């Protein structure tokens, strides 16, 4: 009993430490712009720009990549994913592209990608993006082949739902690009951005003692990759609370019109980004501010964004943009904070030896265990990233880690149930089977690259897998050309 009681402060400390690291400057610089990009994508990209390529009469070599692109551009929340999935399946391009869309959407949305990049490394984020798209198209093709007969019998109504034409206004396109630039400038660790060009000394005494006090309050172990709460971190947390409060007054009621709070909270977000991009170095008797390349990049892009919101975007666009962003933050951020804290607590309870024994190396078993864990555990959006970070620190190999990262948002009991209600039980379980296979393969390939296999060889493996799969598809399809009714349905031409 005593040991349990003694362990509690330790556990809470670990949770708080994890949360502090999460709110650290470099994560904020990635996540805050990512939320805004997600909001801008939802509000400013008309869905018709993608959905018109997902109609019944679109050729396959266009509809599959379009489905993958749709997963990236349109699907930040489940309220888009499921209806669009059902629509493509029942009334549009069919089962294959619908499955591709379903596979790609949760794995590569902008929030998940940039968060993965900031916390786990850019290579993992890129691997997640590329492999999810390649295998998403693969799974879609396979599903379309296995169930080709039913696909041919779908209702042949006209696809007017997919005929809509709309284009993005030029200013919202530029707005989105500037946001992406902000994200890249905030996230990339290259010399041009991290070098400090000017130093400012502020005679603020006591900041260093404040930071010492924070370090004592939240103990951390740099050898484990943990970060403590710096004075800058504390300032950022304070600013975040302020943003939350002002946004509640300014954005929650944005449909009744803009008010002063709307602009105050938006301004505070810009200020937070600027503070996060500064290098802040407290020393006895003062504080040294380092104006890095990052700071100037953030300064310029936030000014451009502010100017565009005030003069270039229509009121409607600005309103929708702010509302969607706020909705994402409100929906995801609190869960993320709780999740990150919980992960910090749990980390103390797992022995590194367990993880290392099972998934410490890039084996088939290790990758498969990663996938199984991903399928049976359900975590809210984005929580998979801190969990993956926990596994990484406990000694998991990056290969199995990617296998887990691809399969976790993809498959959960909840998503399997919803999918079942749309495409039926048999198709769903076949889908689950193929996702497990492909996630395991993705982990193995990426793991091989980490272990030193050259990129060329890994690409060759990937190509080989795709060739074998498409060969099998072609063979099966070839056999199926024989029955007379198939002649009318040119699913795959020879």
């Amino acid at each position, binding site marked *: 009993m005593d040991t349990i009681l003694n362990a509690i402060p330790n556990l809470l400390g670990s949770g708080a430490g994890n949360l502090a690291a999460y709110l650290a400057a470099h994560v904020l610089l990635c996540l805050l712009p990512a939320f805004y990009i997600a909001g801008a994508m939802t509000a400013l990209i008309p869905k018709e720009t993608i959905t018109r390529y997902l109609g019944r009469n679109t050729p396959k070599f266009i509809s599959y990549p379009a489905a993958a692109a749709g997963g990236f551009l349109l699907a930040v929340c489940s*309220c888009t994913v499921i209806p669009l999935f059902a629509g493509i399946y029942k009334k549009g391009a069919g089962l294959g592209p619908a499955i591709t869309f379903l596979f790609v959407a949760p794995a590569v949305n902008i929030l998940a990608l940039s968060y993965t990049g900031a916390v786990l490394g850019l290579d993992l984020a890129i691997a997640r993006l590329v492999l999810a798209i390649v295998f998403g198209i693969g799974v879609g093709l396979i599903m379309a082949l296995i169930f080709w007969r039913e696909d041919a019998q779908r209702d042949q109504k006209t696809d007017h739902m997919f005929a809509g034409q709309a284009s993005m206004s030029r200013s919202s396109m530029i707005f989105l690009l500037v946001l992406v630039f902000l994200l890249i400038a905030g996230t990339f660790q290259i010399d041009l951005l991290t070098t400090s060009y000017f130093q400012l000394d502020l005679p603020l005494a006591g900041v260093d003692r404040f930071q010492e006090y924070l370090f004592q309050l939240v103990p951390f172990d740099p050898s484990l990759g943990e970060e403590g709460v710096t004075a800058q971190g504390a300032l950022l947390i304070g600013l975040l609370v302020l943003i939350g409060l002002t946004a509640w007054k300014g954005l929650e009621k944005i449909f009744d019109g803009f008010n002063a709070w709307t602009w105050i909270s938006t301004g505070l977000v810009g200020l937070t980004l600027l503070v996060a991009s500064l290098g802040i170095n407290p020393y006895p008797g003062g504080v040294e501010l380092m104006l890095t390349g990052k700071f100037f990049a953030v300064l310029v892009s936030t000014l451009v964004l502010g100017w565009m919101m005030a003069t270039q975007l229509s009121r409607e666009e600005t309103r929708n943009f702010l509302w969607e962003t706020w909705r994402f933050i409100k929906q995801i951020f609190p869960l993320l904070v709780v999740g990150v804290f919980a992960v910090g607590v749990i980390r103390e309870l797992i022995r590194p030896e367990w993880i290392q024994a099972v998934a410490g190396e890039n084996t088939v078993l290790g990758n498969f265990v990663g996938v199984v864990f991903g399928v049976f555990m359900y975590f809210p959006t984005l929580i998979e990233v801190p969990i993956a970070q926990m596994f990484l620190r406990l000694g998991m190999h990056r290969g199995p880690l990617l296998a887990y990262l691809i399969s976790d948002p993809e498959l959960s009991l909840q998503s399997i149930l919803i999918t079942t209600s749309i495409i039926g039980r048999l198709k769903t379980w076949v889908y689950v089977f193929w996702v497990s296979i492909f996630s395991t393969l993705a982990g193995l390939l990426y793991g091989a690259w980490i272990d030193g296999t050259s990129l060329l060889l890994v690409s060759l493996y990937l190509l080989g897998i795709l060739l074998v799969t498409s060969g099998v598809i072609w063979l099966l399809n070839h056999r199926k050309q024989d029955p007379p009714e198939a002649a009318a349905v040119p699913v795959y031409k020879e």
Partner: protein
Amino acid sequence: MLTIKILGTGCPNCKRLESETRKAVESLNAEAEYIKVTDYQDIMSYDLLSTPGLVINEKVVASGKIPSQGELTSMVTSALAES
């Protein structure tokens, strides 16, 4: 009398869409019956690719976004003219 259906599984945007629509209907002094459609199978029987969806007299007039007050009033006005 209009029949207005709000299609969506209860995400914040569906609630927002309903309150915005109510506002538009009230401003026109029209009467309407509101029905929330939350079951996926029922939602899918309408032609739309994203929620929230707005259906007036069984016709999908908006989906995937919250129309502005101006758009909403013109939708309601034309539905009133047709009925």
